[in-house]
């Protein structure tokens, strides 16, 4: 299973001349579907957040528990995204530049987290580090708390965002071949120098692309962190969990107000992606 691949650069090929009526009704159908199903939900988040004016919106955002949810969300992403990016780079180097037995198996194993329900992913860590888990007694004896605490949330996020960078980088690095690196080595460059000066620049857009997708998922993950979070306001709530908690309190504005932050994250992700597509196309 592979995640979405990058939108490739394309100019529409000269198609068979469709009758204009067919062409424009298909375009209209597609545009209406996208506007209602994708655009309207986003606009609705902001409309509901401001439905009663500025003051309830501001009250929800200035709540200290929301502030701490922002900090925890940023912390979880700041730990899990770089780790998975380093893994993505090493896995892509080994898989794209070398031939070895078991490569197909390794690729399948990298995809595993995509196939496993996030809720099950959370459960895996409960069984490993929870009070009744394998490491539970040892952790308790050393007064360490992983489950229902931030470390468990970082681990669950690492698991669900594990394949993102690797999956994005492997095809990019593979398509580069290894002639450039071989030339650099022949000219006397060291291994690290070759990596930093030759390989990294040639895959940088693919790497950034994987990182922003990984980050969007890390900050927005719900199921996996729900299971391992202690649901303590101000301590173990990330932004998506905070949205859920406010929703269950039947507050009409607050969950949408907090959701605008995640909506902005989505918009920023989309804009960055568009920028990377444009940059990548220009360099081709």
């Amino acid at each position: 299973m592979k995640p979405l691949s990058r939108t490739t650069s394309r100019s529409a090929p000269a198609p068979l001349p469709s009758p204009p009526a067919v062409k424009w009704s298909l375009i209209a159908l597609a545009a209406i579907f996208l506007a209602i199903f994708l655009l309207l939900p986003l606009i609705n988040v902001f409309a509901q957040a401001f439905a009663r004016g500025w003051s309830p919106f501001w009250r929800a955002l200035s709540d200290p528990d929301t502030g701490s949810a922002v900090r925890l969300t940023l912390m979880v992403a700041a730990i899990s995204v770089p780790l998975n990016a380093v893994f993505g780079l090493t896995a892509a180097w080994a898989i794209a530049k070398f031939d070895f037995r078991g490569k197909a198996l390794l690729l399948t194993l990298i995809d595993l987290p995509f196939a496993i329900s996030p809720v099950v992913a959370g459960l895996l860590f409960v069984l490993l580090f929870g009070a009744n888990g394998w490491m539970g007694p040892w952790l308790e004896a050393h007064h360490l708390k992983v489950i229902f605490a931030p470390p468990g949330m970082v681990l669950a996020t690492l698991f669900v965002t594990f394949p993102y960078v690797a999956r994005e980088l492997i095809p990019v690095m593979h398509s580069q071949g290894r002639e450039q690196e071989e030339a650099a080595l022949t000219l006397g460059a060291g291994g690290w120098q070759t990596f930093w000066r030759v390989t990294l620049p040639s895959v940088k857009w693919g790497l950034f692309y994987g990182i922003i997708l990984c980050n969007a998922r890390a900050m927005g993950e719900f199921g996996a962190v729900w299971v391992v979070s202690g649901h303590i306001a101000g301590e173990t709530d990330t932004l998506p969990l905070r949205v859920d908690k406010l929703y269950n309190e039947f507050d009409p504005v607050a969950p949408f107000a907090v959701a605008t932050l995640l909506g902005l994250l989505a918009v920023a992700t989309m804009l960055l992606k568009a920028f990377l597509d444009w940059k990548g196309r220009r360099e081709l």
Partner: protein
Amino acid sequence: MTKSPAAAAEIAPPSNPLPGFNLTLGFSVVYLTLVVLVPIAALALKALGLSWNDLWILGTNQRALAAYQFSLTASLAAAFINALFGSLLAWVLVRYEFPGRRFFDGLIDFPFALPTAVAGLTLANLFSAHGWLGRFLVPLGITGAYSRLGVVIALTFVGLPFSVRTLQPVIETLDVAVEEAAACLGAGRARTFARVVGPTLLPAALTGFGLSFARALGEYGSVVFISGNLPGTEIAPTLIVIRLDQYDYTGAIAVALVLMIFSFALLLTLNTLQGWAARIEEP
């Protein structure tokens, strides 16, 4: 003339001179083991330590069976809608030039960028009786929030990009000349599509279907908002969460095992499908 050993070595394919193979592969395998494989092994070992009888009863009792059934039905429905609209969207975005094409093309990835909790929250609101869509649909008897239909809507939303993004590259590589040849030989548009375009797109369409189905089966975040926890709207991941909340670990593990078996079977099917699709893409 016999070649000297030195000349033979020059002719033989050069060995890979790139450094770092052991380091990168070693790190990758260790990291994969720690982050992914050890946790999965923890579940497997825990399950082995439990009574098979308990697992079987908790994994197949009436509530669990109802949850699997609804999970499968709703995910299939969502994947089917995605295959249908995904094909339409991919076709329109690749083949037609129109104002705003770039914008709509970028918009396709939106469900990947938007946290699923926010998707569930806003969709539930849109389709509720006072929402922008619900105020027209609810009087017609279409309740798209806090209902089974709502779950299908949420699952369709989160899976949409998979089917569009797997079909787009294949439509791009379609050779227009083949369609023209079919047209020259007297095939109508419908027949050209059914006999020439359709079979080429089939592996990608099935892959997209499988990917959005797999995503839907595991999805929890968006569903929890739109299902309203009403009877009949319980999916398998929801049941796991409910059992964990009651500290019923055996019950949660039983459902998780069934879901994992589904996921692994799907992953293998998808790998096979993608191999097939790759062969068609590169004749």
